[in-house]
């Protein structure tokens, strides 16, 4: 595929070596998503999520088993969540270099920052609150359990807006900051968000919040999408300055 891609326009003729600010942001973005994976998968055991069909006792047991790792993981996330802002900032900067109006950049920034709150932070906060008091009433623990996963897997609108604006911007952009096929990869993301909508209805099966379609396929495609996006931003940063 890369054979078909014209080299991205150079960042204001600045030599690659000088773009220290972009490199710092890029490394922070990579670090954040790495840390995000470690926290959510290994420490908090929130990805892959436990089933929505767990009984109240099982839910209390889940929190009891992972109490310390949840506290460590999401404790770190309370600090590391800033990486999400930098990750959205660096892509927003790339969008300012497109030939499309700045309106899309503002929508990108606003929708992603809205997404970070219910999409990621609310889940971490509810998990921490659920493990905060050992003698929490099981019914309340179950409610916090629901808020955690319904907000984590179930906040859709912000990301759909974010993806559609990015896809539209890439399609309309004449400077080829991102190759056109990236717009289509982004549209796949919109489809996975669409298929995550039934998590509010089903507690088991492929469309529950740990279902094979709503969760696994969405996460797999998100992994591919984010890896490609980070690689493309990297390519833009290291593109040599224009010779002429």
């Amino acid at each position: 595929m890369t054979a078909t891609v014209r080299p991205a326009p150079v960042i204001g003729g600045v030599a690659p070596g000088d773009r220290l600010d972009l490199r710092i942001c890029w490394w922070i973005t990579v670090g954040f998503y790495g840390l995000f994976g470690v926290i959510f998968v290994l420490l908090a055991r929130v990805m892959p999520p436990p089933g929505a069909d767990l009984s109240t006792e099982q839910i209390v047991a889940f929190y009891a088993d992972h109490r310390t790792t949840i506290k460590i993981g999401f404790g770190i996330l309370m600090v590391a969540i800033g990486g999400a802002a930098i990750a959205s900032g660096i892509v927003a900067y790339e969008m300012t270099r497109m030939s499309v109006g700045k309106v899309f950049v503002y929508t990108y920034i606003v929708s992603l920052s809205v997404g970070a709150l219910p999409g990621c932070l609310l889940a971490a906060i509810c998990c921490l609150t659920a493990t905060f008091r050992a003698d929490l009433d099981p019914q309340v623990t179950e409610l916090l359990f629901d808020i955690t996963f319904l907000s984590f897997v179930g906040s859709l609108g912000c990301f759909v807006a974010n993806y559609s604006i990015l896809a539209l911007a890439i399609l309309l952009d004449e400077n080829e900051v991102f190759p056109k096929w990236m717009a289509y990869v982004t549209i796949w993301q919109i489809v996975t968000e669409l298929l995550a909508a039934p998590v509010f209805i089903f507690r088991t099966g492929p469309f529950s919040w740990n279902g094979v379609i709503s969760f696994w396929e969405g996460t797999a495609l998100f992994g591919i999408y984010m890896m490609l996006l980070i690689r493309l931003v990297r390519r833009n940063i290291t593109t040599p300055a224009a010779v002429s």
Partner: protein
Amino acid sequence: MRFDAQRVSLWMSATFGGILVVAFLIFPGFFPPMSPTMSAQEVADFYADNAPLIRASMITFDFCGVMLLPLFTVVIHQLKRIRTSTDVFAYCYLSAVTSGAALLALANLFWLIGAFRPERDAHLVQLMNDLAWITFTAPVGTMVAQNLCFALAVYLDQGERPVFPRWVGHFNIVTGLLVIPAACASIFTSGPLAWDGLISYWLRLATLGTYMIVMFVVLRRVVAEELAEEAGSAEGDLALAVG
């Protein structure tokens, strides 16, 4: 018809705003609005009986609520065009819009979580319902700040041809003032200031609705003027490079 980012944004917000109105109408708790004086058991029964409709409308709300953002970002772009000394108001407007959108997303989630497990303890369902309604109704501060910044930018426009007519500034001030009493929905449980009351509910929603429609019409004209101005400076046709 050129593919201008602003025009695309306006029409995106218009279409999803239309879908949002439909989702708003089919939500069983909006017509007539649920009363804060309902007992926990009544609230739990309401969620249990209407779970499918609540889920359908709130999932649509989840998708389309954030899609109103493009309209506000067009406003931000226009604010940056206004010849005030700096474009500080644009950035104030940007941050106000962000928190406003986050509030809508949170309220939407609380309703959906309330309807997730009908067998949940009634008091917890009532808790989620209260959280949803208060988050949906009371925090009007971001709207007031938005409108204030917009109005000030319009009044302080020193450009030879003002971007926005002055009445739009007055309109923003009036709408900002009309929604302020809705903040009392977090205090009163009955009367016109309660979240189902005449002022906090009906007036606030009517104001929001008119605000979106009027701003859409005004922005369409302002964007058209800007494009005409730019066309004067022979900017190329923004061809769609779908290739």
